[in-house]
């Protein structure tokens, strides 16, 4: 077949990229080779626009066993235990087919984790939808939630956390990010780097079909009206097969058969084989007629580019083929030796003994393009909102407006569709600041949370980038965990647009600054560009997934008030930053101004002191203050609790609304047994932590002196209505 300009363009390759390919090959590629280049050189696999910026992220720390560059990051949690985790996006497929898109997103990230030898122990997700009244939102929400549940429930891994948000910026481009967390033995981690010559390359798992061909290129292009019409063959998830694949792989990993292992994710057989060879500085040769196929008459092109799910590539030690095959037979899975490692440093593809493609590995990997795309800094907004100019409202009405809004409503409609308890180690389900998962058969536990703040990032990418890291850190602290490391999923618009690229660069700078200060390194992640339609880009939406350690889990800490008459303390200073607050958004539709600043020093001190209080068993409940400010956080502490609170009129009152709805960072609310108050105050004073004693818990009612008096069960009802009516 003649390689025309049109064909090149269809493969998502730019003219100069194609010229570069010809130079690297010393000739024109054939169709199969063109397909392979397009799969490896697209944004999704090559990170060509992001790589230079990602390099800035801090990735080291004594807790880090494996940073970015492998299927998932690995951290040390003491003894011989390691935690393996990563987050990944499945945005475009989920918009086209929400159920299958979300389901296969979960399947993909699980493979990244068990490929490394870890048994997955928790799933989380961050899902962003368009405005609730947009005609597509409801069915997308339904499809995505049941897809996430459908996969995780069936395979039997608890889905324990996440976030569900609505904003019109996602009307035409929803976000579906899935995170998986696994547990492994420290000395039993598996990597993708190939080693040794003439080793068997084994294909295991499901058969290859024509699904998702060019999925990776789809994720690397903007949507247009036609994309929905194009209906690329959607991948259908098969969680049952994945369960078998996971058990079979984990069984095989018990002995020393595996040299290297890699899941077939984006760009399937192509990227997995190239990645293994490139990391090992080897060549790889595949006999494609041996690839197990689901459909008749599949071509090498289709086999190499198919994104059929639930497949893995393994390089085996000599002589282990039979014993390994037995395991896969037991689980009724295909196991076929389809090639071997070579010293050619080339990817050689044979089909019925004829060489169909031959490409130097480095042309696909290290020589893939890297772009230093133009970017510009965001001009900071100078707008300050003066509450005096706004229509007067009552505190109670403003609060109700927030509590009943889609973004703040109780999410149990979502989380009840996920099995959160399977594996019987979920000590704290979603609904709290962070979920807590006990390490099986041990006293210790991890805490996990995912967070994002698109509005903040839109208005100030740098501050926003810092803020999400801190918010995520805070969420782990609030449940008594020591934050260890993060994974990140960077969802942005079109990187060829210099403002978007600026948002990206600045967010990364923010993430970097916060991670460095907090010793909270990045161990894995994913970048998703081209989130937008017809030049309308989504708000910059970096999502942070954090993991923390609870050394000894006795009683999980959560944010529900526990007792009558305990003291309520706010850690951290309330100034009353009201721009970008949800108070202004929900009540006045005002989106202007800068987000609250981050003071990393206070952030760190406040968090570490709280952790100290929790470790000393002085805290009954604790909650970080985020969207909606102090008053919203207090209300949340009364939900699912038999107790309310009585809050004093603020002493150094600036403005009631700023005080109660301001979104100043670095703050927590804690409930302290009255008799422990002196002890707690002493510790906070010694640590030079700013705190305020704001009131005490009481039965049934939520009260602010002279301002507000509501039954907590009414508040709870208000908070629970939206989803059930939607």
């Amino acid at each position, binding site marked *: 077949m003649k390689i025309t300009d049109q064909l090149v363009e269809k493969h998502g390759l730019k003219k100069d990229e194609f010229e570069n390919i010809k130079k690297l090959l010393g000739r024109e590629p054939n169709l199969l080779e063109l397909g392979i280049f397009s799969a490896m050189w697209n944004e999704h696999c090559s990170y060509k626009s992001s790589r230079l910026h990602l390099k800035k992220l801090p990735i080291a720390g004594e807790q880090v066993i494996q940073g970015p560059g492998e299927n998932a990051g690995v951290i040390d949690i003491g003894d011989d235990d390691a935690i393996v985790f990563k987050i990944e996006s499945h945005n475009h497929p989920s918009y086209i087919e929400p159920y299958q898109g979300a389901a296969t997103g979960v399947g993909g990230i699980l493979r990244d984790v068990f490929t490394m030898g870890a048994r997955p122990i928790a799933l989380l997700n961050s899902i962003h939808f368009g405005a609730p009244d947009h005609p597509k939102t409801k069915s997308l929400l339904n499809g995505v939630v049941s897809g996430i549940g459908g996969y995780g429930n069936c395979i039997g891994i608890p889905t324990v956390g996440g976030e569900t948000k609505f904003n019109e910026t996602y009307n035409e481009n929803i976000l579906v990010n899935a995170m998986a967390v696994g547990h492994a033995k420290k000395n039993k981690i598996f990597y993708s780097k190939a080693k040794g010559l003439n080793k068997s390359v084994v294909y295991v798992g499901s058969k290859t079909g024509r699904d998702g061909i060019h999925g990776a290129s789809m994720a690397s292009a903007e949507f247009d009206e036609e994309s929905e019409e194009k209906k690329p063959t959607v*991948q259908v998830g098969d969680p049952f097969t994945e369960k078998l694949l996971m058990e079979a792989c984990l069984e095989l990993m018990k002995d020393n058969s595996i040299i290297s292992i890699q899941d077939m994710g984006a760009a399937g057989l192509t990227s997995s084989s190239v990645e293994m060879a490139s990391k090992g500085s080897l060549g790889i040769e595949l006999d494609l007629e041996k690839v197990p196929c689901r459909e008749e008459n599949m071509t090498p092109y289709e086999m190499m580019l198919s994104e059929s799910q639930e497949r893995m590539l393994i390089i085996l030690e000599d002589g282990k083929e039979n014993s390994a095959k037995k395991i896969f037979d037991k689980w009724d899975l295909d196991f076929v030796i389809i090639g071997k490692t070579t010293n050619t440093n080339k990817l050689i593809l044979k089909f019925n003994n004829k060489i169909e493609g031959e490409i130097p590995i480095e042309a696909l990997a290290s020589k893939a393009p890297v772009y230093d795309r133009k970017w510009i800094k965001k001009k900071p907004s100078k707008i300050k909102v003066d509450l005096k100019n706004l229509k007067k409202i009552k505190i109670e009405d403003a609060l109700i407006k927030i509590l009943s809004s889609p973004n703040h409503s109780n999410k149990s409609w979502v989380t009840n569709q996920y099995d959160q308890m399977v594996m019987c180690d979920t000590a704290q389900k979603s609904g709290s600041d962070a979920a807590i998962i006990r390490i099986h058969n041990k006293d210790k536990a991890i805490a996990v949370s995912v967070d994002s703040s698109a509005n903040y990032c839109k208005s100030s990418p740098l501050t926003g980038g810092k803020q999400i890291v801190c918010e995520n850190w805070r969420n782990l602290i609030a449940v008594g965990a020591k934050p260890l490391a993060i994974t990140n999923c960077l969802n942005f618009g079109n990187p060829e647009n210099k403002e978007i690229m600026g948002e990206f660069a600045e967010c990364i700078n923010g993430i970097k600054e916060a991670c460095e200060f907090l010793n909270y390194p990045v161990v894995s992640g994913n970048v998703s560009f081209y989130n937008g339609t017809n030049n309308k880009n989504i708000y910059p939406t970096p999502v942070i997934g954090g993991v923390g350690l609870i050394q000894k889990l006795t009683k999980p800490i959560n944010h529900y008030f526990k007792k009558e008459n305990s003291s309520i303390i706010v850690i951290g200073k309330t100034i009353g930053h009201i721009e970008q607050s949800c108070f202004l958004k929900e009540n006045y539709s005002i989106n202007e101004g800068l987000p609250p600043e981050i003071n990393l020093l206070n952030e760190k001190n406040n968090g570490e002191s709280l952790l100290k209080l929790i470790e000393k068993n002085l805290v009954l409940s604790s909650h970080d203050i985020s969207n909606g400010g102090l008053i919203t956080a207090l209300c949340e502490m009364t939900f699912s609790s038999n107790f309310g609170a009585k809050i004093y009129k603020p002493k150094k009152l600036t403005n009631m609304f700023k005080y109660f709805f301001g979104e100043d960072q670095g703050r927590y609310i804690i409930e302290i047994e009255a008799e422990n108050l002196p002890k707690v105050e002493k510790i906070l004073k010694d640590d030079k932590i700013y705190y305020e004693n704001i009131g005490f818990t009481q039965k049934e009612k939520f009260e602010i002196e002279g301002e507000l008096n509501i039954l907590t069960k009414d508040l709870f009802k208000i908070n629970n209505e939206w989803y059930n009516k939607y």
Partner: protein
Amino acid sequence: MAKQFQLNSKKNKLKFSVTVTLKEDVLDPQGKVVQNTLVNMGINNLKSIRQGKHFEIDINEKELTVAKKKIDEMCRKLLVNLIIEDYKINIIK
């Protein structure tokens, strides 16, 4: 039953069936498992089995073309996932 039949014979009502099947190249995990099971149960000669959905729809409408259009609308709007499924409408009576 008797009553229903009466209604039908008055032809105020039409009955359709809709078959929804997965498109050809789309993976059918259900069919796959069923097929393996049947083979393991010793049923030989089975070449392939694919699973789909079947709907039986009664509609209060006497005009066949109008009714068919309505059924088609239901399929497109709800019953069928056009991205991965095909469908066929049959009139029963």
